[in-house]
């Protein structure tokens, strides 16, 4: 008997969430390192707020957004590692022998990313508020931050899943992690784009979608409701999620060969 799609997704989602939360080595660093970077930056770069045209009163307000994107990068690692492990261990073959729908498998696998993303978003918001950050867009803005953060996690998580399904290798997933961090550092992470004086850096940051994800979240913290920044943030995160999901779905078709 073939189970319904909802049951398949729910069953695999539960497994993905349980599996993710039972790996402290995956959850703790994804919370600790973004918060560590937040503490270092907020404490050490406060002087940057004195630059003419700097958009925030405190560097904490400005840099809080980085946590959410950095958390998304950890999501990529988490999703990719879990999927690669399923390929390497043969668990994917076990699933292939059930009447499982491929879409259900992919969606279910990414549920762990969403669970981790929810924990991250909640933690970063609470810690940010306790540390003195103010969210200009208010409570509703906090929810939008969480939503955008989850979409970013889903997008990066899908990239991790794509690499894992394409290569079937946990090492390959680990290999893209530094590249994704490079994308974060080459964005408007530390300064607004218009205050970046080095031409090539400003150009790279302008073409880097990570900048717009950061600016979407940042706008809710330091400005309030900026529809253009939010639209760009959601479009970039959503675009990456869609493209990566299509790629992951295609890779799954190749990896999950069954007649």
């Amino acid at each position, binding site marked *: *008997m073939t189970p319904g799609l909802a049951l398949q997704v729910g069953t*695999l989602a539960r*497994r993905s969430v*349980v*599996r993710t939360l039972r790996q402290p080595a995956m959850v703790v660093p994804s919370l600790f390192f973004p918060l560590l970077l937040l503490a270092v930056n907020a404490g050490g770069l406060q002087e940057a707020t004195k630059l003419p045209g700097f958009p925030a009163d405190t560097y904490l307000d400005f840099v809080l957004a980085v946590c959410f994107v950095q958390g998304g990068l950890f999501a990529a690692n988490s999703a990719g590692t879990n999927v690669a492990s399923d390929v390497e261990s*043969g668990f994917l*073959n*076990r699933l292939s022998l059930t009447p499982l729908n491929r879409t259900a498998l992919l969606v279910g696998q990414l549920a762990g990313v969403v669970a981790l993303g929810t924990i991250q978003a909640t933690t970063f918001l609470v810690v940010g508020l306790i540390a003195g950050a103010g969210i200009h867009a208010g409570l509703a803005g906090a929810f939008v931050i969480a939503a955008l953060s989850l979409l970013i996690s889903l997008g990066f998580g899908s990239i991790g899943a794509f690499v894992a399904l394409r290569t079937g290798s946990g090492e390959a997933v680990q290999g893209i992690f530094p590249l994704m961090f490079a994308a974060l550092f080459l964005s408007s992470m530390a300064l607004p784009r218009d205050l970046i004086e080095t031409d090539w850096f400003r150009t790279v940051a302008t073409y880097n979608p990570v900048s717009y994800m950061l600016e979407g979240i940042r706008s809710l913290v330091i400005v309030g409701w900026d529809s253009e920044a939010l639209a760009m943030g959601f479009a970039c995160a959503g675009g990456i999620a869609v493209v990566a999901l299509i790629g992951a779905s295609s890779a799954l078709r190749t990896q999950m060969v069954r*007649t």
Partner: protein
Amino acid sequence: MLASPAMSDIAAIETADLVREFKKGPRAVDGIDIRVAPGEVYGFLGPNGAGKSTTVHMLTTLLPPTSGSARVAGHDVVEEGTQVRAAIGAALQEAALDPFLTGREHMKLQTALHGLPRAERPRRGDELLARVGLVEAADRKVGGYSGGMKRRLDLALALVHGPRILFLDEPTTGLDPQSRSALWAEVQRLATDDGVTVFLTTQYLEEADLLADRIGIIDQGRIVAEGTPDSLKAEIGRSSVEVVPSAHEELGRMKQVLSRFGEAVSSSPKGAAVRLSGGDAQLADVVRALDAEDIRVEHLQLHAPTLDDVFLAKTGRHLEGSGDGAAEEEPEPAGVAA
């Protein structure tokens, strides 16, 4: 394509000239024909890299054949994959388990994905966990299980939907003797009590000899011999005698004496062995001849024909140890484009 047989004549597994080629590699499976009757335990015996796992992957729909055809439970593995999967259970070469889930959580996952009614899932899970002796460990994470426990859970998971045909790919590789015996007992019970057809790959002679009703010996992608264990050994026919002299200097002279009784076969480096042309009755003559030549013997043993002798006779190589080494590793089937 194979012709659709009459219902009464449906084989559990039937292949015709089944071939699988890998890119940049040899033919992993090179035209095999198998017919396994319902309720039969079929042992697929061969060294590493012989093509056993590739065959299982094709029969379980995880790998499309390059050419030829195969029907499992009466369904074509290429055209009717869904029906094949509904009829089979499989425990593949690695115990494919999630180390972060418990045994019971694995059963929940598998029973749900196979579409068992909600009320039936816990009952079925508990029943199978009890059958494989994992009730006490059911709520422990699988990462802490021993190799034998993982294999038993793997077997239980393959049985959740009550398959008519069970594929076991080297189920006891790497297990200690006690775990191996427990798994053998369960396989025998499945075949005799439940009437499940079992397709079992193994590189262990003892396993094939003990469990299988019939054996197919595969080497380099081809079936080199097929029959019941007894009939295969009967093909080889005669026993061999192996003798180790007390003094190594006597080895040459001892070989000359032994050569009177049959053709030389492989033996330990310290001794010599011959296949007795006159059968077991010649053993006494061998002892008398050695005594007459004043050759003192440290060790003398009569060997009944084994499946390894069958393999040796068919391929010129011994089965045990013949597959060692990375060069003979079977290509990884998963994810390889047809």
